[in-house]
């Protein structure tokens, strides 16, 4: 008995060391890229000069300017094309970052029995809300879903283990899972942007890759001014101006996730 216990401890020790070794190269690389060559010329990593920055990014969708499904179509297309979002024929495998739905699906708690014509018939755009208080981030066991300082809720696809806890946690159905290899189902690959592999979760990223180059998100660009994007923290920003001048609503406010996407109805 005594010896078998010792055996066990040995094995446990070895595996602990093994885990340490597993992470060692990464630490080395950080050390190397930090202060290796000694002098002031050590390599560094910075933000691009043109990068757009904000304290907290937000979006205002003026649904009055997006009246029909045909108005929404190009926005959705623009997003899905630039991000290599696949078109699966099987509904179960469906992946979407931004899509259209009806008022009472977008705002189930705010669906009056008698609605005005506009809200009743207008299609509504829904996407990840980049919540200030994101339950998906809270749930993720690996920090593959995380919140950046500027409020963006992003995915680190390298790290995601595909447990889909974040999908259960998101109260907006904003997330999709790669139930199979998406590549054969991407109609036209944008070679500048990666695809995903099977087994990871994905969702709207507020076009973080475009903001980094000084460009506005793809849907905003394609919206002919119906969607405004900017810094919610800056009283002078366009989004704040719109929020001052119009009555807006957000999805499921009562849950306290504090969505960063506002709707003018």
């Amino acid at each position, binding site marked *: 008995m005594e010896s078998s216990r010792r055996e066990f401890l040995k094995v446990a020790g070895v595996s602990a060391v093994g885990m340490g070794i597993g992470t060692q190269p990464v630490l080395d690389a950080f050390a190397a890229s930090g202060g290796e060559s000694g002098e002031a010329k*050590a390599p560094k*990593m910075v933000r691009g000069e043109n990068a757009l920055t904000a304290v907290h990014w937000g979006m205002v969708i003026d649904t009055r300017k997006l009246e029909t499904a045909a108005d929404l179509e190009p926005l959705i297309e623009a997003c899905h094309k630039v991000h290599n979002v696949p078109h699966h024929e099987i509904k179960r495998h469906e992946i979407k970052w931004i899509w259209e739905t009806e008022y009472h699906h977008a705002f189930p708690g705010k669906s009056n029995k008698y609605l005005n014509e506009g809200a009743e018939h207008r299609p509504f755009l829904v996407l990840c809300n980049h919540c200030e208080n994101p339950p998906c981030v809270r749930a993720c066991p690996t920090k593959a879903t995380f919140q950046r300082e500027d409020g963006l809720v992003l995915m680190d696809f390298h790290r995601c283990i595909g447990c889909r806890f974040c999908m259960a946690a998101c109260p907006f159905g904003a997330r999709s899972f790669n139930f199979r290899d998406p590549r054969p189902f991407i109609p036209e690959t944008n070679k*500048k942007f*990666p695809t995903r*592999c099977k087994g990871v979760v994905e969702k709207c990223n507020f076009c973080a890759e475009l903001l980094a180059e000084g460009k506005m998100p793809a849907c905003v660009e394609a919206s002919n001014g119906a969607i405004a994007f900017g810094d919610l923290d800056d009283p002078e920003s366009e989004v704040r101006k719109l929020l001052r001048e119009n009555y807006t609503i957000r999805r499921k406010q009562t849950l306290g996730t504090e969505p960063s996407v506002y709707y003018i109805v």
Partner: protein
Amino acid sequence: MSKKIYNKDQVIAGLVIFIALVSFPFWYNLGKAAPAPKVELTKQAKEAKFCVRPTEYMKAEHMQLLDVWRDTVAREGKRIYVNEAGKRFTMSLSNTCLDCHSNKAEFCDRCHNYASVDPYCYDCHIDNPKEKK
């Protein structure tokens, strides 16, 4: 618990066979190591002369560099790498590395195949950004 070893001979014979089997790959490959592959540089790469970091470093540590790049880009939103010479690069496997090394088969794959590593980078990152298809 001290116990006498029963069937000592058989145990030893068994051990010898076990060790022989486990070490099989070593002595089987003895003396016939495949020659290290030659990687080819594209014209663009040759002309550039200098990679992001010194060649020796890149040879040995490009994976660590890429690992830091991916964390920094994906998580911190910093996308520009300034090397010791002050030169700026966009930290992107497909758009920067493979832009210069556009011959993945003769550059990346040869060595990876030789070392028998199969990085899953290309499951997602486009491996032929220049190829029109």
